[in-house]
């Protein structure tokens, strides 16, 4: 399958697993993706900490730049912050007329399930705030932040 259909496939994969195998199975898939796919983020955080997060998400060579997201990344006073103004995945799903996965879990939940465990392994905390509309649907906006965990 082409990577150009990936987001549509990803969204329907979540729907299929949730409906057939339940929420625990979907969380298990996300945990596996976090471990097996997020290896670049893991290497950067391990080597550079908050600067590694900035490198991973920020800049034109970062993930979000390559995906053509509209976003902002800052690192100030030992706090990393990301803001997504237009999520490219949600935008594509809407553009292609797809129903965005929204059951007990949502499409947008996958980001926090993928990325938080990675940074937490290196003594950072991470919070993820997803914006939903009145109907509980993802708006394509979110913000996330991270800092060194206090002992």
């Amino acid at each position, binding site marked *: *399958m*082409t*990577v*150009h*259909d*990936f*987001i*549509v*496939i*990803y969204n*329907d*994969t979540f729907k*299929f697993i949730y409906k057939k*195998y339940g929420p625990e*199975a979907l969380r*298990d*898939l996300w945990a*596996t*993706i976090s471990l*097996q*796919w997020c*290896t*670049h983020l893991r290497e950067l955080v391990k080597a550079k900490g908050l600067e590694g997060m900035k490198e991973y998400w920020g800049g034109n060579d970062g*993930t979000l730049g*390559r*995906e*053509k997201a509209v976003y902002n990344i800052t690192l100030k006073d030992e706090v990393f912050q990301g803001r997504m103004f237009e999520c*490219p*995945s949600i*935008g*594509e799903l809407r553009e292609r007329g797809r129903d965005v996965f929204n059951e007990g879990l949502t499409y947008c939940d996958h980001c926090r399930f993928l990325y938080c465990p990675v940074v937490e392994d290196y003594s950072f905390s991470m919070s993820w705030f997803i914006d939903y509309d009145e109907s509980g649907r993802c708006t394509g906006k979110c913000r996330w932040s991270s800092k060194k965990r206090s002992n």
Partner: protein
Amino acid sequence: MAPIKEWFGLYNVIFGWFESKYGSKALEEYYRYLAENCFDDVIEKFRIHGLQGIKDYYEHTFDIDQGEYDSEMLEDEFLFTVKKCPDYQFMLSSENQYFKPMKNYCKHHEIINSVICENSGHCFRMLECDGKGECRWSFRRGGASNDGT
């Protein structure tokens, strides 16, 4: 949205998770679900434009993913030979150990192409597949393959 090549590796991770958790039959059921639910526009294109639509679709798909192929349109059959599979090209170039293509990675092509073709009035056969990124596909009009299978 601009796709990133790491998503080829993510397909492999998802397929591998599925098979290890639920087995190969469940993985095939998942492929059929994707074919039935994610390719409405492709099925419609194949139904309207026939073998020429199939040719245009796969050539375009492999062009944008930077694969290499030969295609041959015969009177009642379209043959597509994959010389460099973009999935394999990326995954084998990656240092991520989890991007090593799973055994039967290519099965998803066989099942998804078959369902898409059946639903558009065509039949698909995987004529050859070396499991390493080279394969040969056949598309014909009608619901049954030329050997009656």
